[in-house]
């Protein structure tokens, strides 16, 4: 039997899909099957893939939504790498860090199931970001103080606090510029 796609090679992968009661048979050579994504999993990722797709609440979430919304979600695409929501659903893998923002509203139920109910990181923080985190928290604190000082009409002290916030913001900007790759 010839490969249905390239018609060059002998078909090596035979796949039967049942969609809405309609049986569809697919016969492809190994290379085309790879390209079509029928063979894109090794042993380990096969089990992991099944494990993930079974636990992803996609279908459930999708079924509960009005049709229009479902269609919109299916074409939801990550600007960072072009991964669509449907592809993410199929592969169970992100394409880039931006995917985390793009598909954000769907991710917490997944993280909860994989990580025993957790959705927040509590471990190591890179040194570069660690310093910034502290600075940002200090800025938040200072802003509250600033508000209070303005209400109390203590403008002299408020000016000091404002300058301190400015300095911290500049430091964050600078450390964002430094370093490469």
């Amino acid at each position, binding site marked *: 039997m010839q490969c249905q796609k390239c018609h060059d090679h002998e078909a090596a992968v035979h796949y039967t899909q049942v969609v809405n009661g309609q049986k569809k048979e697919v016969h492809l050579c190994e290379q085309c099957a790879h390209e079509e994504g029928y063979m894109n999993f090794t042993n380990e990722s096969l089990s992991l893939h099944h494990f993930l797709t079974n636990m992803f609440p996609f279908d459930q979430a999708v079924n509960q939504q009005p049709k229009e919304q479902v269609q919109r979600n299916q074409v939801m695409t990550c600007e960072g790498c072009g991964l669509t929501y449907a592809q993410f659903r199929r592969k169970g*893998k992100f394409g*880039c860090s931006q995917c985390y923002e793009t598909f954000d509203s769907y991710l917490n139920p997944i993280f909860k199931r994989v990580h025993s109910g957790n959705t927040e*990181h*509590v471990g190591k923080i890179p*040194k*570069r970001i660690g310093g910034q985190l502290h600075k940002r928290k200090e800025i938040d604190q200072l802003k509250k103080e600033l508000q209070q000082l303005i209400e109390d009409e203590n403008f002299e002290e408020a000016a000091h606090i404002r300058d301190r916030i400015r300095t911290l913001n500049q430091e964050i900007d600078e450390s964002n510029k430094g*370093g490469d790759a």
Partner: protein
Amino acid sequence: MSLQDFINDAISPWMNNEGNDSDIVLSTRIRLARNLEQVPFPTSQDQESQQKVLQHVEQEFNEQSYESFKQFQLVKIGELEPIEKRVLVEKHLISPNLAENTETGAVLISENEQASIMVNEEDHLRIQLYYPGFELSEALQQAQKLDDWFEERTRYAFDEHKGYLTSCPTNVGTGLRASIMMHLPALTITNQMNQIVPEINKLGLVVRGIYGEGSEALGQLYQISNQMTLGKSEEDIVEDLKSVVKQVIESERKAREWIMQQSGIQLEDRIFRSYGVLAHSRIIESKEAAKCLSDVRLGIDIGLIKNVSKNILNELMVLTQPGFLQHYAKKSLHPNERDWFRANLIRERLQLEQYKN
């Protein structure tokens, strides 16, 4: 190549040291998954960005040293022969998945082969560290330092809430997978593993056989590792794993004592039969070899077999895999030929022990 040279080639230098609880724990592994900021993950199949990552690693880290990890060498998958790739997989220095990435896959290996950093596997960087025996705290500490060294010259993809961003949702957060490789013959013989495994799973840890498919653990070797990476600090992940492993070690020791008391002569018989098979067979399948090696190692650990080095299980489990056999034979072997070669190799290896004494 002489057998001794071949063994030296096959056994990573770090494996020759003896670690804590080495009668039961063979090795400790720490793995950190890391990605570079603003570069699509390798899963996106974007060749250009993967090349960029590879170049960055080559420029910054090739032939560099960091503390006890000397002379990192960058090995590109595309430049390896199929057997060489298989050998790296069998030594657990690269994953089967990375071995398939001939375009942009690479691995940075330290001189003592204790640290290996896979480049363009599922994530840009997979920092792996091996220790002999039960050494979780030390391994984590060193892995964190190595990670800091990488971070000095690399901007990682990190999110305040989600931690280190990885291509698979199962690794996000710490990106940490801590694994302990254990030899548990007595718990297996006494059928206790069937009860222990579900108990360990309930604690959020995963148990799997190291060699062999599915649930069957070849050579009674099991790997216990954490599953959760989000919502728990690295130290807590390691501490929790440590306390479970300690309990398993205790249970295995008790089970060994129990068998010795209850059926010492049967156990002794089993161990020496296996020794006989290894010492005299002319054809041996990997499954039988693994079983016999496990018995002999148990015999060494409980003092029944003397004058054979402890490392024989670790060593021969690596050496008798198809990649290494073919590397030793210097040609590709048909499965039947492999069984014949395997038997030869094991016999020669045991003879080597006799000459030592």
